């Protein structure tokens, strides 16, 4: 197959993947829930912190990172976009659609990368809206303590939050492709993502390892003021953390590709 026809077929297959994801309710809902949860919860968290702020010590106020805390709701919002990524692939196996997909597109690499492309593109659009709206809503809810997008590091954190969500979705696609089942993938990803909210990443002894988990590393991109509490400090900076997440994504996507390539459908 020459390059033009390969490109044409990749375009056709990506378009087909786009049709697939918007014609099933579960994937549409997962994608819609991402901004809803992130923005709604972001607003609530900021409102709560604002009252704490008003009664807090000067020291506490000085180390407070409104940008990071404004994005705190993404730790829950990300669950929805991860579910989206998982369903995109797992739904094919659960329903047997994978057989129809491979019968139409027997070149497994073409099918896989078209799916990754379509899935992450949709996730990126969703993440872009989520990140910016969450930022503005949360900062508005902080009232006088909020910052503008022009504040130091705020734009980087917001763009970073968008990349973070997109990468988490890509990671989920890769994991689901490796495990070939929504249930199995969610069974691994959900506990993994709750480790973070359980704060295990801050326990000194396990932190050495846990700080390199995909979400723990990637989410640092939303920090503007490095935490002075050593428990929250990391061995890498914001971009370093995002690079760790990118490494996880690359490994997961390649793993998913190899599984699809080798296994019987």
């Amino acid at each position: 197959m020459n390059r033009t026809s390969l490109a044409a077929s990749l375009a056709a297959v990506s378009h087909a993947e786009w049709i697939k994801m918007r014609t099933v309710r579960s994937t549409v809902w997962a994608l819609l829930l991402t901004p809803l949860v992130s923005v709604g919860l972001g607003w609530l968290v900021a409102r709560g912190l604002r009252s704490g702020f008003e009664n807090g010590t000067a020291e506490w106020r000085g180390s407070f990172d409104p940008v990071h805390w404004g994005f705190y709701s993404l730790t829950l919002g990300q669950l929805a976009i991860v579910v989206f990524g998982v369903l995109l692939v797992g739904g094919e196996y659960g329903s047997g659609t994978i057989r129809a997909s491979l019968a139409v597109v027997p070149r497994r690499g073409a099918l896989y990368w078209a799916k990754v492309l379509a899935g992450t593109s949709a996730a990126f659009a969703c993440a872009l809206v989520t990140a910016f709206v969450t930022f503005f809503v949360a900062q508005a809810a902080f009232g006088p303590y909020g910052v503008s997008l022009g504040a130091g590091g705020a734009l980087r954190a917001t763009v970073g939050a968008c990349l973070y969500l997109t990468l988490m979705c890509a990671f989920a696609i890769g994991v689901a492709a490796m495990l070939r089942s929504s249930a199995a993938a969610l069974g691994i990803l959900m506990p993994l993502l709750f480790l973070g909210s359980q704060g295990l990443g801050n326990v000194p002894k396990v932190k050495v390892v846990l700080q390199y988990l995909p979400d723990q590393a990637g989410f640092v991109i939303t920090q503007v003021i490095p935490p002075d509490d050593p428990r929250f400090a990391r061995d890498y900076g914001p971009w370093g953390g995002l690079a760790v997440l990118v490494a996880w994504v690359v490994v997961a996507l390649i793993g998913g590709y190899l599984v699809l390539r080798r296994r019987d459908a």
Partner: protein
Amino acid sequence: MIEVENLSKRYGRTLAVDRLSFTVRPGRVTGFLGPNGAGKSSTMRMILDLDAPTSGRIRVNGGRYRDLRDPLRHVGSLLEAGSVHGGRRARDHLRWLARAGRIPESRVREVIELVGLQSVAGKRAKGFSLGMGQRLGIAAALLGDPGILVLDEPVNGLDPEGVRWIRGLMKSLAAEGRTVFVSSHLMSEMALTADHLVVIGRGRVLADLGMTEFIERNSRSHVRIRTPEPERMRDVLTAAGARVRQADDGFLEAFETDAARVGDLAAANGLTVHEVSTWSASLEEAFMRLTAEATEHRAGAER
């Protein structure tokens, strides 16, 4: 045309397909007959490159399935396990297939009408009856107007009207010069639709012959004769208008005659006969007999 050559497939310790070789030719309905678990679905999945053969090879229109350009335009398939997401509307299922297969979207409406799903095309597939699901699967198979159809148990779950419809459809597709390869575990179903039969049991080809030949050999009653003078007996019977063939177990099988006439002819010609018996079998019995041995072997192997 589908050419299967020395195909084997092993799942773990089970040898599901064992050195299968046969050719599915265009212009006729080829029935792929065998009991459940004989390896029919595995073979069909391998034809579509969904499962990789352990050894052997398959050529579809002369090449590998994965090398076909726009495979949906060459091969339409209906797989037994189903391949439709229940949360998707029937029309949407056909739309993404058409898009991925680079088939004009207008074709979606055509196949929906062709299989008679107009009234439920906007409904989600999980609400479908088995029969409606089969019709949707057949619509998907016909989407690319393919020259080859691979249908795994297409009559499953269809109501009598649906069964009649699919029989007619398969025959007309073959009459248009297409290759129609259809599996079933029911001999009676094959007898009504297939022009050619490939019978498998325990992953191996047990028979590969025309339907007419299969019926001739198996369904009509015939007389089985054991004699130390087979050549003379054959001449005598043939001269009397019977059709005679040598069976694998040394018996002579005489058609278009009966036991009394064979006895009379033997006496009149002074022929020694050790056994004369009448055999009549239905197609279903013939099929069972053919596959019984293979099944027994497997039962023995599993013990």
